[in-house]
């Protein structure tokens, strides 16, 4: 099923070619290439500090690549990381409605339902437990109408039931023709390809850094 | 030494302040430059050895 009508750019592929990414001027990963067609998910794996977050931020356009290109990402990405961007003073519904209208959407009910937040709609975000907050942060994805979800450790602090809710949400998203790129240390129970980023560790000599001019 | 008259204090302190500041920035610049250069040489030598 392909819901182009509600903004899904179905069939368009996210294509990363020979990407090199860095943090604080130092190269972290180099030579990363993958493509992520609609309807599929790709899970990034790798030990702590291997560069998953850096890669995801680059794909989301939050930092510039040191080399290589990201194609098909403009205005298609919904990004979610540790910092949820939730306002403690606003209620669950207000938080969601805000993000919905930023992305030009209006209906927040499916998102609330998918993450079992209906009982909490009137609760202030600051009064949620860690896992409830996370659920709200993930529900935000569903009101963006974006078709590429870029997720950094989405299941942190979730209990088993919530992880299942999340997996269902991702499956639904994939079924609608969306795609998902996720970094995680645990098994999500979603059929997805895996990419181990530790294979792409940047050898210092091999690639350019911003300080290259000085070497 | 020229006769500076009643304004001696003003003129001398103006020269003193300026010269202190000028010499200060020059000394600071050179001192830091030397240090950085030495540090760079050390690192260059080290990394040259390592590969």
């Amino acid at each position, binding site marked *: 099923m392909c819901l182009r009508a509600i903004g899904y750019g179905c069939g368009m592929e996210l294509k990363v070619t020979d990407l090199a990414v860095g943090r604080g001027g130092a190269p972290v990963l180099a030579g990363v290439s993958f493509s992520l067609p609609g309807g599929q998910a790709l899970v990034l794996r790798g030990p702590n500090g291997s560069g998953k977050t850096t890669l995801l931020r680059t794909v989301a356009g939050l*930092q510039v690549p040191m080399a290589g290109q990201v194609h098909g990402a403009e205005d298609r990405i919904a990004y979610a990381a540790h910092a949820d961007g939730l306002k403690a003073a606003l209620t669950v519904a207000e938080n969601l409605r805000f993000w919905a209208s*930023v992305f030009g959407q209006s209906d927040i009910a499916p998102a609330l339902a998918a993450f079992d937040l209906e009982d909490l709609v009137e609760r202030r975000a600051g009064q949620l437990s860690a896992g409830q907050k996370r659920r709200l942060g993930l529900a935000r994805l569903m009101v963006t109408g974006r078709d590429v979800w870029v997720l950094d450790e989405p299941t942190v602090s979730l209990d088993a039931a919530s992880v299942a809710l999340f997996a269902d949400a991702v499956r639904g998203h994939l079924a609608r023709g969306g795609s998902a790129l996720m970094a995680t240390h645990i098994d999500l129970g979603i059929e997805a390809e895996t990419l181990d980023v530790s294979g792409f560790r940047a050898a210092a000599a091999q690639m350019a850094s911003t300080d290259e001019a000085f070497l | 030494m020229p006769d500076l008259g009643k304004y001696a204090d003003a003129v001398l302190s103006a020269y003193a302040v300026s010269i202190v500041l000028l010499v200060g920035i020059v000394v600071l610049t050179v001192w830091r430059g030397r240090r950085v250069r030495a540090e760079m040489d050390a690192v260059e030598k080290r990394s040259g050895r390592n590969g």
Partner: protein
Amino acid sequence: MRALFFRDLALALRAGGGFGLGLAFFLIVVVLVPFSVGPQSALLTQIAPGVLWLGALLACLLSLDRLLAVDWEDGALDLLATSPLPLEGIVAVKAAAHWVTTGLPLVLAAPVLGVLLNLAPSGYGVLVLSLALGTPALSMIGAFGAALTVGIKRGGLLLSLLVLPLYVPTLIFGAEAARRAAQGLDPSTPLFLLAGITLAVLAAMPFAAGAVLRVNLR
């Protein structure tokens, strides 16, 4: 953009940051002035327009450092940057919300506080007008400063340092207009110049602020 504006207003109202407190700071600065310079009313009358302008400026400044920093810290700015809204628009809207929650109350409160400082009767109208014309520029320039310092922990004081010299022309023309009016002189020239500055700032500054924010976000 509308949603962002109203969210910022709601946050300012609810988080105990907004309306009341910028005002309270203004009030207290104005109240502390007699304690510090002494209570002679002639002296107070003389400095009243200036103190009111300076107080408004400082009250505005004090609330700047959270203008973008809060959204930066909780990740909302990253998310906004990946949203369809342009960064220029985001900064402009946030500056507008800042003005509504800080500048506007100051404009409305200034005449009341003028009484405390024995402001000359002829000064009230132009004081309010000059604040109304000038405070939008203060908010927009402040947003630029906030965008410059957004990634820096404890950036508040650095922000003041960067922003205050930028406030000088606005302050000079604004205070000059209020002072002239209080002395019974014609305030129209400084008022025109003030309006000119504000217009130019509102037209050009969002782009500078957007560019700076883009650099800081990457």
